[in-house]
């Protein structure tokens, strides 16, 4: 119980620190009203909007007001859309979850078996081919891959929609694009983790006992290799914004990665702050889940009470 309370307290403190840092850093960059109205405003109108969004108060007063709102469940109004940021995120979060979730599962479903195969059959030509694909996927930036896919499948072949998120078909190219680098990462990571384990004495012993190869690989090698692999997957989830942001931008997919970047670019403070809160929550949740999976994979890992 204490453990859970400690984790929650630590998580809340982390969030408060992150939001505080973002709150002040974004305001130092300047006044959003200059960006909201690029054609300029009369002094009366400028003053009106400053007052409406509370930007005429000192940073400290704004900070207190923001935290008062947070306690009441009010995460603020978007400065560019004049509506609660929670409403905006509620509209966009499902798109990012579909995109990242399907790419993550695809990368896992393809990357993990290929990584294992490449480790077990390291001298076969097909392994060289797999590693070449992994190298390609790892090396090519996803926005370049995205543009190539649009060019081939939309512009030339007219097979796929190039932008938007209206139907599941719209998610196919963004998902494949996003999954490519994650899959490459999974193949390389799984292969190296497995190679390390396959050289261990206990694997040799298992084989010497006459166990079938499939049991040696799945039960003895893979289970031990899973700890670093799960850590890697946890990092992928925690870094989801970094993964999706460019893909969402190129495919004009209305997700939260693009929203957070827009929040930073247009100084839409409430949007940016809430985005960071969501992101921090995902990081914390990912860490908790990874910790939990560790305990399932390795009985020696237990929560210290």
């Amino acid at each position, binding site marked *: 119980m204490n453990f859970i309370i400690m984790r929650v307290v630590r998580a809340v403190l982390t969030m408060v620190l992150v939001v505080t840092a973002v709150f002040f850093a974004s305001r130092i960059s300047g006044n959003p009203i200059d960006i909201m109205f690029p054609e300029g405003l009369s002094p009366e*109108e400028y003053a009106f909007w400053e007052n409406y969004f509370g930007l005429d108060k000192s940073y400290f007063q704004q900070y207190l007001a923001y935290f008062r709102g947070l306690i009441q469940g009010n995460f603020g109004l978007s400065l560019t859309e004049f509506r609660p940021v929670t409403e905006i995120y509620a509209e966009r979060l499902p798109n990012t979850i579909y995109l990242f979730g399907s790419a993550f599962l695809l990368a896992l479903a393809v990357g993990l078996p290929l990584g294992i195969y490449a480790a077990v059959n390291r001298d076969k030509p097909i392994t060289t081919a797999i590693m070449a694909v992994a190298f390609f996927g790892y090396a090519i930036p996803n926005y370049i891959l995205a543009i190539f896919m649009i060019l081939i499948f939309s512009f030339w072949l007219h097979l796929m929609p190039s932008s938007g998120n209206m139907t599941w078909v719209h998610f196919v190219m963004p998902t494949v694009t996003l999954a490519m680098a994650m899959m490459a990462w999974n193949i390389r990571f799984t292969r190296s983790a497995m190679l390390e384990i396959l050289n261990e004495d206990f694997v040799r012993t298992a084989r010497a006992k006459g166990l079938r190869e499939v049991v040696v690989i799945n039960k003895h090698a893979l289970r031990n290799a899973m700890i670093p692999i799960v850590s890697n997957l946890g990092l992928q989830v925690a870094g989801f914004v970094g993964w999706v942001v460019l893909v969402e931008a*190129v495919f004009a997919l209305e997700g939260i990665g693009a929203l957070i970047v827009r929040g930073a670019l247009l100084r839409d403070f409430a949007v940016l702050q809430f985005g960071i809160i969501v992101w921090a929550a995902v990081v914390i949740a990912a860490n908790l889940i990874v910790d939990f999976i560790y305990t399932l994979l390795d009985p020696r890992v237990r929560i210290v009470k």
Partner: protein
Amino acid sequence: MKRLLTTTAILLAAATAQANELTVGVANMSSYLEPGTDHSNVGSQYYVNTFETLLGKDAFSSKAKFEPMLATSWELLGPRRARLTIREGVKFHNGDEMTIEDVLFSFQAMMNVTHPARVERSREMFSNIARVEQVDATTIEIITKRPEPLMELLLNQQNGMILPKKYLMGLTGDPNVDETSDYIAFGLAPVGTGPYKITEFTPSESLVWERFDDYWGEPAPYERVTVRFIPELSARVTALVNGEVDLVTNIPPDQLPVIDNTPGFKTEGAVTPLFHVVFFGTGERNPKVTPELRKAMMLAVDRDLLNEALWEGKAVVPSTHTYPQFGDFYTPDIITFRHDLDEAKKIVAENNLEGTELLFHTHPVYYTNGVLAAQAMQEMWAEIGINVSLNVAIERPNASIREVANWSNPMYFADPHGSFGKMWAPTGAGISRGFWEPSIGIEEYTKLYDAFRYETDVDKRNAAFARVMEEVERDAPFFIKYQPYESWGMRADLDWAPFPGHIPYVLDFRAGYIGDEKNGINK
């Protein structure tokens, strides 16, 4: 694999092409839709399908031909008084019937402003209206402070579109008061009387119009029109040729062949009633940017060369702030802006301006070719010894530190007061925002301007406008670069083109304004 590809193609076709629908990919999307507050080039794309004014105007004609809209008839009872009969049986999109109360309220909202964001619009457009009186259940009279030669033009303005009083006031707070928050909430859930009602609006992202079945006039040709924000030019072009959208906006000249050379697609373009301008810091806050320096910089810019290089010669380089749409008030003989390198160098030498350093601000994408033009002018100014560095950023520095910047001056209505005046009248945006502090003083300038604004004789009015432009040439707060040529890409079977009688960028999809072979719609 082939089967998979075929299935996907069928699904894609099903997802994108549905009966009697139009999908538009736009470069700019509004964050709110409130016609009384908005006067941006972004917002002007969307209002005519949703909202209506008292008087309509023939958009196919560049001349001001007015026609009944929410007023069935009108009569000018004298230079300061107009009488209008309000149409009966008109419904708002929320089902409420439009009454004279709504009309009076819409004027009230512009004249007796409670919403500070409407102050500027009110000052620019309706400052001459003294009061609006109800004569009977369907008749109103508009009385102005001074003789108003532009009465009909004012009654056709986007800022004067008719709003639903009860709905708007009931959005937030006290339902009997039009609070500021009501207008802001209205901008997110707009309701008008036009042929299309807005059924979905995601600010800065997308908009869906559906045919309004209770519309008083000819029904909208489309059941549904979807507008999607696709900011990247290449993404917009791809979406068009891939069949995801039917029409795209803002195609620069160098991209026109990409669309025109693709079978089944075409482009339509026109010189837009909008000027791209360069304006300067003025007044005591900008002592370095003197009238002499400003004039020398205007003279140094070879605008014809900019037109050739950036617009393939399709833009228009005017000699003064005037548009052919002004009819009798079109004054191309006035020469306010010109290119004379020798004179520019002479002014620099006489006033010891060589080596002056200035910062030029420009938005990265808002003005088509804006950054390229800035870079070209940077070289032209270097030729006369003025060193200008560029600041390419979304935000524009406030008036006190701004030295040179890009801007645009659209034609809001077909009269010098509706374009030059909207920006540079004593009540205009350029002066109220502090862009220009006339060196002759605001009182003198107001006298000079009003002599033109309220003159009813054509020749005298044009002569008075020439005197205003002489002051602009002398004080040089800004100069016009060109009138840009803007293009739209579309399916080849769409019969749509920008309208000479509209303000810039209007996407008009009302009956008679668009033809669509695929959907069986005749223009």
